[in-house]
């Protein structure tokens, strides 16, 4: 849209509701004066030409119809004056003057009407400028404001009559984004300029505007005026800067926190999850674990798209970029938590937390505590934040603590055994000493030159008495041991197996073995020594893990199952997927000092069996029935239901 200074003045006439009475009166008075002069004065000249003034006033102030009527009136008055002063047959100079006057009036009216039409169009266009929310003003070549729209009045606070005539960028105290001369150079070269200006309003407020300048040129090409349209972007700038600050804060947290953060793209698994949902699969974790290759495929679809420096340090990556890849590259084979996280996502949960292991860039496996934050909108799955914390030290502390506890329990036992041994030694040593001494005495009595059979018989009688006494003491000690040695308590087997599993976690990870536990619901408790039975469980589990060390090409799975037997017993089965045990070896492995390990004592299974038998149970081994692996069976008498 263009506006010219002329159009602007017209707008102002319209806008201010100019009083029309004064020009109307003036027109009538002038017309009357001209008529009197024309008709009755002796002046020889084209006095009627002066009606042009009346037409001009009309053209400026009257409506189109008013102009036409005024013009007609003037023409009529010209003709009337002519006929009044001259006879009709009189041709010559007066008639010529009359025609000149009529022509002048007619031409003036025509021009006036045309100008009026142009002005109306311009006024209409200019009024549109008032409708826009943008502040629009026009400044001439000296930067002096010549037009100022309503939005500019409202936005800057100066009414048009105050703004017009002022030097635009002095009034607004504009700050330009670049050198002002360069900006004007661009404007004159290309005819337009766009950029951001910082300005002040009348109230002194600082505002930021997006400014668009258009240069108006005269027909010859010389610059005439500049139309400047300014859009208020102060609020947008503020919001933008808040967003920028927020982003900067987030970035600072992301970069500087000691917690490793990985931004992951999970959108790749969404299609799979949707498909499973359509197919009615509810147990996503179970389904994935069971279906061949599902977990690995899904792990490969999750991509790491960003990582902070803590993640880089924790995963020992040479650069941030080195970590950008698939989740599969970072998770060890035996990870159990990813399917659970998938299931949490499928259930629509917003977060998932667990403990697992991750593979570092240099190939080690470290334990981590991690949390996954899923976005509220499933379409934003490209932005999943995973934070992780290296818990190697905590794990080490935990195992150290468990080891210390086991050591303490062992030490307590050893000291009890020590006391027991001392008591036993003292109790038994006395009758033994008496037996030997009496024996010696009997021999001496018999060896005397005249053997004293009475003394010898007495001494031998005491040998027998003390022998009996020694035997009684041994019996008493055995009775005491039977009563005191096993620390009997009610044990929940699944819970005890859970504790044992924690102790062998590192072993599982190191051998890439996944552990499955299946517990019969409502399993009765068993009465026994927690530490001893736990040692048996650990022994069997570690044996199973080591039996799978050479397994290639099939999953290494250790399954620990608890079952309730019908005859009031509880069974625990430890199954591996290793090479199995030959039938002829199945009894031999329980013999003391039998071992397949170079550094083994060969006492493990022998002790396990005697421990289980001391608890009134049985321990044996079978094949799994699947062609691979072995199953160790423990049967224990069941106690109370939990």
């Amino acid at each position, binding site marked *: 849209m263009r506006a010219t200074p002329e159009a602007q003045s017209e707008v102002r006439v319209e806008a201010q509701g100019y009083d029309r009475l004064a020009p109307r009166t003036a027109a009538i008075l002038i017309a009357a004066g001209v008529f009197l002069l024309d008709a009755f004065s002796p002046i020889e000249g084209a006095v009627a030409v002066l009606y042009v003034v009346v037409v001009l006033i009309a053209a400026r102030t009257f409506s189109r119809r008013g102009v036409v009527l005024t013009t007609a009136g003037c023409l009529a008055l010209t003709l009337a004056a002519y006929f009044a002063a001259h006879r009709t047959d009189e041709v010559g100079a007066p008639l010529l003057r009359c025609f000149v006057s009529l022509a002048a009036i007619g031409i003036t009216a025509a021009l006036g009407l045309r100008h009026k039409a142009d002005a109306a169009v311009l006024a209409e266009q200019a009024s549109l400028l008032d409708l826009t929310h943008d502040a629009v003003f026009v400044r001439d070549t000296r930067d002096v404001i010549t037009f100022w729209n309503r939005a500019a009045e409202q936005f800057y606070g100066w009414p048009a009559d105050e703004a017009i005539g002022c030097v635009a960028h002095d009034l607004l105290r504009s700050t330009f984004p670049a050198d002002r001369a360069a900006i004007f150079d661009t404007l004159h070269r290309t005819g337009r300029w766009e950029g951001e200006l910082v300005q002040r309003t009348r109230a002194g407020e600082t505002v930021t505007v997006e400014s668009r300048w258009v240069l108006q040129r005269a027909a010859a090409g010389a610059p005439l005026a500049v139309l400047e349209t300014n859009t208020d972007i102060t609020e947008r700038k503020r919001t933008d800067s808040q967003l920028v600050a927020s982003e900067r804060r987030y970035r600072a947290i992301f970069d500087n926190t000691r917690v490793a953060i990985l931004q992951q793209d999970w959108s790749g698994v969404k299609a799979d999850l949707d498909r499973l949902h359509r197919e009615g699969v509810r147990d996503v974790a179970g389904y994935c674990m069971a279906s061949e290759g599902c977990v690995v495929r899904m792990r490969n679809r999750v991509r790491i798209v960003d990582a902070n420096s803590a993640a880089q340090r924790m995963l020992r990556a040479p650069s941030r970029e080195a970590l950008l890849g698939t989740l599969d590259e970072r998770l060890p084979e035996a990870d159990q938590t990813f399917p659970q996280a998938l299931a949490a996502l499928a259930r629509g949960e917003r977060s998932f937390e667990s403990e697992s292991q991750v593979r570092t860039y240099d190939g080690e496996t470290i334990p981590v505590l991690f949390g996954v934050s899923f976005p509220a909108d499933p379409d934003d799955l490209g932005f999943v934040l995973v934070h992780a914390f290296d818990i190697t030290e905590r794990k080490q502390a935990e195992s150290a603590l468990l080891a210390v506890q086991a050591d303490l329990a062992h030490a307590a036992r050893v000291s009890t055994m020590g006391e027991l041994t001392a008591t036993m030694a003292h109790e038994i040593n006395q009758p*033994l000493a008496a037996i030997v001494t009496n024996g010696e*005495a009997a021999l*001496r009595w018999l060896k005397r030159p005249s053997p004293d059979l009475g003394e010898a018989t007495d001494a031998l009688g*005491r040998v027998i008495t003390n022998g009996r006494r020694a035997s009684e003491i041994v019996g008493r000690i055995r009775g005491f041991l039977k009563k005191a040695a096993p620390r009997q308590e009610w044990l929940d087997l699944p819970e005890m197996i859970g504790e044992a599993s924690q102790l062998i976690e590192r072993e599982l990870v190191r051998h890439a073995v996944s552990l499955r536990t299946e517990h019969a619901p409502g399993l009765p408790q068993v009465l026994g020594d927690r530490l001893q039975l736990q040692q048996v469980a650990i022994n069997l589990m570690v044996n199973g893990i080591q039996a799978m060390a050479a397994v290639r090409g099939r999953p290494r799975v250790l399954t620990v199952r608890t079952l309730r037997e019908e005859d009031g017993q509880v069974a625990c089965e430890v199954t591996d997927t290793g090479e199995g045990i030959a039938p002829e070896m199945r009894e031999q492995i329980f013999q003391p000092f039998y071992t397949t390990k170079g550094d083994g004592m060969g006492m493990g299974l022998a002790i396990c069996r005697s421990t289980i038998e001391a608890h009134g149970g049985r321990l044996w081994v079978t094949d799994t029935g699947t062609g691979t692996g072995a199953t160790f069976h423990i049967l224990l008498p069941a106690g109370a239901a939990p």
Partner: protein
Amino acid sequence: MLDMPTIAIVDDDEAVRVATASLVRSLGYAARPYASAEDFLADLARDPVAAPPDCLITDVQMPGITGLQLQDQLQAEGRTFPIIITTAFHSEVLRQRAVASGAAAFLEKPFNGDVISEVLESVLARIGRS
């Protein structure tokens, strides 16, 4: 028979005490068994005129006064008869302490008949009572 050397035996365990006494007698000595150091000391005090034993065989571990304390006390009283310390729990420290305090011998239970015979003979020979 009046000349027969007398051996006092102090041991809280009756079976051992009776057996030791029998062994000592079978070797041709008179045996005077006591169930505690207190009994022995009381007997010594009650009859100062009667001759003290020619030798004492005492156990170390006893309730009340132990064998080593008994030895110290007898030396403090100026008794000069030789003392043989015996124990069921051998310890080198104990042996050294006993010998350092003036024990004539240190024997482990159960006794070897030949050993105790030799020890008694040599101890009594030293004091001219064999």
